[in-house]
């Protein structure tokens, strides 16, 4: 990177003074509108909550959308059992603070109940298996809409996905048969058994999310900020040193100052080297970074060119 953090924070200050506040208000109003469309159009919606920054933003928006009432849908977490402990603790505290209904379903249980075969070897991950647990959870509670924190700037298949993304009774996304989505008229009509995935922050960028978290004074799990950690250095990526990652002879164990840009399953989420320990420093760092957080840190998206598209077709978020 050729721009220093100081210069970057100047750029950021310039951007936020001239345009960002108004822009954040617009994004916030749009997301609240979408949340309320979900509450108005569906019988049994749910908010998929992972403890990551995007779903934390969603919960905050939902709180604002329905205040002074309670959020009219449960928070649902599909736990791979390989999540960061910091994210799980944050999840439980937040649900308690909001007095929200929290539903947790475990991939481990699905594996046992269905006799699913886990991936083995290098880069083995339960990420794909989450889909089974998610679909089972949708069936168990008869959810007709699931709100998620996906954004269009994250990944190229997501850039093409609707805000109300129709899924058939098998949870599958068909990119060629998406409903036209015009103006702000969202069509959530479905048959029983089908469902809609709804993405209220589709039009937000990673920087918008951070700027919003800062503006609203929202606390985040500590792993988003720079800290020293023992890591596995593998193929140029820094992974958390945890027993759930199968060792490889070429792995190196290193200690670095890092933070996480996304908080997913530990097996497929890499850390970035960073000294950014505060929201302002993180924002400055992202301002000068040109790679989206998934592109930089998600091993699951890099396996093939259409990895995300293929997972979505199979029912993934």
């Amino acid at each position: 990177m050729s721009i220093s953090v100081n210069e970057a924070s100047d750029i950021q200050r310039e951007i936020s003074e001239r345009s960002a506040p108004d822009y954040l208000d617009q994004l916030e109003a749009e997301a609240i509108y979408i949340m309320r469309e979900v509450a108005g159009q569906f019988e049994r919606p749910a908010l998929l909550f992972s403890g990551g920054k995007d779903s934390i933003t969603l919960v905050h928006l939902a709180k604002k959308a329905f205040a002074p009432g309670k959020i009219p849908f449960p928070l649902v977490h599909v736990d791979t059992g390989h999540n960061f402990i910091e994210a799980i603790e944050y999840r439980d505290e937040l649900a308690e603070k909001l007095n929200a209904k929290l539903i947790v379903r475990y991939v481990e249980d699905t594996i046992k109940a269905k006799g699913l075969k886990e991936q083995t070897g290098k880069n083995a991950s339960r990420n794909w298996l989450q889909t089974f647990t998610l679909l089972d959870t949708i069936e168990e509670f008869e959810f007709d809409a699931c709100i998620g924190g996906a954004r269009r700037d994250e990944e190229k298949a997501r850039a093409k996905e609707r805000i109300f993304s129709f899924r058939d009774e098998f949870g599958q996304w068909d990119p060629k048969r998406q409903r036209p989505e015009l103006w702000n008229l969202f069509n959530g009509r479905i048959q029983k058994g089908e469902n809609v995935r709804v993405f209220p922050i589709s039009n937000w960028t990673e920087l918008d999310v951070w700027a919003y978290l800062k503006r609203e004074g929202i606390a985040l799990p500590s792993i988003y900020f720079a800290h020293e950690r023992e890591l596995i250095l593998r193929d140029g990526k820094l992974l958390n040193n945890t027993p759930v990652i199968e060792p490889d002879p070429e792995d190196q164990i290193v200690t670095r100052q890092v933070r996480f840009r996304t908080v997913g399953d530990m097996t497929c989420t890499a850390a970035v080297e960073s000294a950014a320990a505060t929201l302002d420093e993180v924002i400055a760092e992202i301002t000068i970074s040109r790679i989206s957080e998934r592109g930089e840190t998600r091993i699951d998206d890099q396996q093939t060119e259409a990895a995300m598209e293929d997972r979505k077709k199979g029912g993934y978020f």
Partner: protein
Amino acid sequence: MEAIERASKTRNAGEIDLALLTDGLRSEREQGITIDVAYKYFQTPNRKFISIDAPGHIQYTRNMVTGASNADLAIILVDARHGVVEQTRRHSLIASMLGIPHVIVAVNKMDLVGNSEDAFLEIAKSYKELAEKLSIRDLTIIPVSALNGDNIVDRSESMPWYTGETLLSVLETVNVLKDQNLEDGRFAVQYVIRPQTDELHDYRGYAGRVQSGSFKKGDAIKVLPSDRESKIAKIEFGGNEIPEASVLESVTILLEDDIDISRGDTIVSVNNSPIVSQDIEALVCWMDDKKTLKPGNKYVLQHGTARSRCSIRGIEYQIDINSYEKLDEVEALKLNDVARIVLRTAQPIAYDPYQKNRANGAAILIDETSNVTVGACMIE
């Protein structure tokens, strides 16, 4: 970018293929065409932008209409060697019909016509003739060379005769707030907030987004279609009272009187009413590739937060989107056809003409059996 370079290489293309930026789906990359609308996000120090990239071929008219429905500004590219062609006419009609407030015509590849002022003026003249038949509110025509960056960010040295604005300067300065309808107070109720707790026992808040105009405490309002009147007792955002709410803000409105209001109702300023009717005339772009629209067919019309069954009473005329000719005696509309239709709804709809109020004049038609969105309506 690195991933695109890698992908370009695996597809044996000699150069970096920039279409790979927007062609995000496997089938698009394999066929080398843009099929669906792609959204991209970028910013300059002065403004944040969302670019909506829509395919240009006639068979993707519905995707273009979809992309245009949310656009503040359209850039129409004209090849300086070919001037105004069929595609220019089609794209301009869509921009006009969807009420995109600002249109930039970028006359591209000026370097291939010797950066000639005469060539540019000729194209500008024929475009203006075309625009007279349409309703384009704000038109800017700019000679550019995307390859050389001429008049994109900086004024071109090869075209000293051009003294107008550059493309980026228009994008950064165009006033988009002014395009909103700030006159007509309209608020479609999305959801009724009723906490039903001890301390908020009688709380009834109407959640929605101000579609146009503004509302403040004490304003006299009317609820449509029931036509009951009341006054605004309070406006809230995130549970806190705010003095007023203007266009595009998502707020909660509380009224002085306890009247029956639910999702689908519209709160409007008492002295400024939309049209309330069951008989509607609209321009429609038909989007279903399986079934045609025919008089007598029944659909669900979604307008604002209201849904009503409706039946098609007739097709007044179809518009040839290339020649702008009106075609009479059309029996059915197929995918991508544009026509003026007459329909009757089961419940009255509170609407404004689309060209006057984009937010309260737009509607979609939904197929009752497949639940697919099959038509985009601009109410006249």
